[in-house]
């Protein structure tokens, strides 16, 4: 078994009386793609925000490379090699695509020239090479998702958390993006992805965690998860599993 890069242990997040994440645990093996799925409002993005330091952890531990990281601010975690994308894209609107990516590249490259050159390379990797000198606002939704990815990649992370990078893309754009994510993994970067596009989860992820109402209700290979009655019920409601799985077998 591969080495575990990230280990989330019994992490909870309380917003006043609301328990958004309830003793959730998950692991990400180095060099693999781990998916985090679940219905809307399950707490996936909240869990990501805790791992990346944007939200404080109410209870539990987050271990990265064996060391506890809960409580560290986002910029310090980024320096340790944890990068993330945002579900709602957050481009630096008044900067060009190249300048956007260079902000990420600056993490390891103090020189302006170096960072701008590195931005060009990363842009080629995610298919933004033609857009480099355009303002970020001129990009389509698909382009902005690529930009999110490019900026995060430019920090040369060890662990990359992708929050719905495929949401809002059309089927052909998704087909273009899936190999990009695979290439990133093949480059040795460990990936955790929140994703609703199941076709992509099935083809990319090696291990899937399912979060529902703040709890991890199942984990396993994509195939095992797809046939898990608890997962089907979480998405479609009580009783749905019997009908669906029953119909499939009958």
């Amino acid at each position, binding site marked *: 078994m591969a080495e575990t890069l990230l280990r989330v242990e019994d992490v909870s997040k309380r917003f006043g009386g609301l328990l958004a994440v309830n003793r959730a645990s998950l692991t990400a093996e180095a060099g693999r793609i781990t998916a985090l799925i679940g219905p809307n409002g399950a707490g996936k993005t909240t869990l990501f925000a805790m791992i990346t330091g944007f939200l404080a952890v109410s209870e539990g531990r987050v271990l990265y490379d064996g060391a506890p990281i809960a409580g560290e601010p986002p*910029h310090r975690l980024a320096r340790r090699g944890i990068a993330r994308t945002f579900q709602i894209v957050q481009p*630096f*609107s*008044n900067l060009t695509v190249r300048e956007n990516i260079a*902000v*990420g590249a600056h993490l390891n490259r103090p020189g*302006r020239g170096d960072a701008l050159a590195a931005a060009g390379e990363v842009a080629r990797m995610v298919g933004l090479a033609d857009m480099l000198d355009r303002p970020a606002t001129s990009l389509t939704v698909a382009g902005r998702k690529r930009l999110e990815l490019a900026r*995060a990649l430019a920090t040369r992370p060890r662990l990359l958390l992708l929050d719905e990078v495929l949401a809002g893309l059309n089927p052909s754009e998704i087909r273009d993006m899936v190999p990009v994510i695979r290439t990133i993994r093949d480059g040795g970067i460990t990936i955790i992805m929140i994703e609703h596009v199941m076709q992509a989860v099935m083809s990319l992820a090696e291990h899937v965690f399912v979060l529902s109402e703040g709890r991890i209700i199942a984990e396993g290979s994509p195939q095992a998860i797809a046939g898990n009655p608890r997962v089907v019920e979480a998405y479609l409601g009580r009783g749905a599993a019997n009908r669906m799985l029953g119909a499939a077998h009958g």
Partner: protein
Amino acid sequence: MRGLAPIAVIVAALATVPLLTSSNVVLNFMVVALLIALVGQGWKLLGGYGGQYSFGHAAFFGTGCYVTAILQMRYGVNAWIGFCIGIAAGALVGAVIGFLSFRSGLRGSYFALVTLAFAEVLRIIASVAPITGAGVGTLIRLDLRPEAFQFQSRAPFYWIILALVALSLVLVRAIEHSRFGAYLMAVRENEDAARALGVDAMRTKLAAMIISAAITAAGGCFYAQYFLFIDAGIAYGPWISVEALLAPIIGGIGTVFGPLLGALVVKTLGEFTKLVTGDAPGLDLVIYGGVLVLVVAFAPRGIAGFLERRRG
């Protein structure tokens, strides 16, 4: 470094002004315009690149004024040394105000209001504290020797303020092409996205505030040496906070030469108004307001931005 040639050309051209005219009116006008350009340059670093709109740059200007004046008059410190300490004191005030407001997460209009409040508090303290001369103000003794940072003619003053403006232009240009500049603009555009990419937003904003305050304080120190008299209303008054932001906004907030251009335009308009209206008090402010409305409506990126767009 790229972009130094235009700065060199413009500064060299401006440096010839005292050789072409010995008119005190012209030189005095130019000195004041360059002073506003310097103060505006400081404001622009924080406001333009950092997106933090301060309404209280008087806090730094006034600190520069008072520290350099008080050190000379009460402690017999050499004027040039006082000048340097004045800049450092302005930077320190910037660090304190910046730390308090950024730590509390103040942005936008809240940041503007808090900086305004700090400047007003300092103005009121300066108008009652004995060390500042309270309501009477502080007079720097006439001592027309270069060692005392005072000169017989206006030309040396002109060259000194021009050199300070040139220095600030080079500094801002260097920041624009550095990692710090990229981080500063990233924080302006989207703080959370910047933090996710490893940018320490608090430290970046604080550093911008300190440099901005230091540049503006240099303007204050120069003011005290040039006019040899300050009081609370001059040093910490809202007029300088307004001039500090008008020059870059009218000139072009995201451009290197914006504050210089803006200061020249604003000052020219001000003088012109005085000429036409015969010094009716406050009318120059009416004109400023009108120009600001026109610029915001038709050239949101300022005169420099407007020219750039016309050309490109």
